């Protein structure tokens, strides 16, 4: 069974996205902090990571974490998820962020599953 790690500080997102993906047949692990998430990547070796962008400590913590993850695991598929759906709010270029997909929350489960299946 493919393992998906969800890193998000919003516990409701962890619960809903976790349950919905579990029902689709994935094994779900969740982390509510970036630190815990980075640790879990090493311990549970997920097949795909869903990562939030905005964390309480920093609004672009997810971008930094994405770079960290890709530095250690360049082949690990990574989806960035954020409630912010306009680039002007961030000071960044989508091309500069090393992620396979860049999605806006809320994402419909059918679409998410379809995208995940492209990678695992």
């Amino acid at each position: 069974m493919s393992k998906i790690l969800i890193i998000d500080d919003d516990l409701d997102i962890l619960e809903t996205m976790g349950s919905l993906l579990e029902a689709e047949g994935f094994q779900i692990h969740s982390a509510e902090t970036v630190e815990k998430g980075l640790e879990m990547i090493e311990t549970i070796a997920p097949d795909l990571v869903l990562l939030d962008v905005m964390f309480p400590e920093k609004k672009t913590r997810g971008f930094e974490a994405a770079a960290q993850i890709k530095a250690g695991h360049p082949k690990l598929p990574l989806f960035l998820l954020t409630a912010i759906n306009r680039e002007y709010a961030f000071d960044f270029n989508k091309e500069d962020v090393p992620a396979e997909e860049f999605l806006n929350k809320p994402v419909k489960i059918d679409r998410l599953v379809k995208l995940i299946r492209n990678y695992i």
Partner: protein
Amino acid sequence: MASKIESSEYTELSRVTGWFVVLRWIAFAGVAGTLGAVRLLGLFELPFALLFAITSLLGLLNLSFTAWLRLGRRAVPSRRQTAAFFHAQIVCDFALLFLLVYFTGFLENPFCTFFVFHILMSAFIFSSRVVYAYVGALVAMVTGAFLAEYLGLIPHFQLWSRGGSAAAASYLGQNLPRAAGLVSLLLISAYLITSIKRRLEEKGQRIEVELDRYRNLDKIKSNFILQVTHELRGPIAAVSGYHQMLLRGLGGESPPKSLDIVRKAEHRTDNLLTIIDEMIDYAYMKSQGEVGRVRGRLPLRGAIEENLELLETQAAAKRITLAANCPKDLCVSATRDLLKIILGNLVHNAIKYSPPGGRVSVTAQGEGREVHLLVSDQGYGIEPEELDKIFEEFYRTRAARQLERDGTGLGLPIVKRAVESLAGRMSVYSELGKGSTFHIFLPALEATDEQDPDHR
């Protein structure tokens, strides 16, 4: 000489150099023409061979400056090199003008006032201290030559009298006022030009401070939008997740009536998301003014596909086919956000105001200097009398209000604003019962825009 160049941009310096070279060619033509005319008409007796030699030297120097400029365009010179280059130009110009004037009557020659031009030009590039250093050197040279002529250390080349050397007394009487006039002229122009420059600089600094304040406000605004978007969309994302859980039976089996209720709740939640996006886009577009984010070169096909993909679920729910048709290499000068606002809104509307089973297409093609973007549907169409009102803020058509309770009436005004901020224009054609087509014309990217515009 460790001197400060005031113009910071290399491109500007290279432009100034180019300008100087052009001016010097004009001066060269003027000097050569005047000398030739004087010689032909036999107006004055002058050492013409020497003067033509000096003029040729001016031409040769300008040729070498041109060559340096061309070479400098290939490899960007350092600030030090550029400063040395300007000093070389000014010193050469001073020296040659001095020689030309000296051999044509010196203070008798009205053209000796032309030194002022060199002072103005040096002030264009160098700081006031350097300008005063040059003026000091020039005043010393003029005074020195005047005294040397007076004392008979160097010969005086007369312009007006018919041969022979003038008496010392008459030389002093005629030329002392001229020397004093020239020196004052040089000093006063140096003072005026450096003062004017200082005032302009102060003005520039004030503008810089204002610009900083503006940039800061812009940052605060972006942060605010970020925060608001996050605070509003975040909870809705969670609510939508719970709805989806219920619809999938993850909370245990629900009776059909309950599922219907959840489906309605989810529908309104989706509407709420659209409304939030429209409000935020509206606030953003309103506050953006003239100064926007630097636009990049955006491949249109990718942007169209990306935006259609986001609306696929919505289209599938009504069995509407989404079609895209765009040449692979077509690019526009835009940000992804603006295209998302334009395409997202138009396609969203096209799906919303179409009966199930229709077709919505996005077509793009290059048309001369423009890119023509069409979004068409086979939907209900827009009443003719409402057609010119749909771009008004908060206006909602009767049909729209009947179809959907929620809506801001901001979608199309935002699209129009986004198109206009990209220097484009848009129009709409609609036929009741047949469908609507929105035409958007954006300026096409010139082939030269491909290169980095800063590097020339």
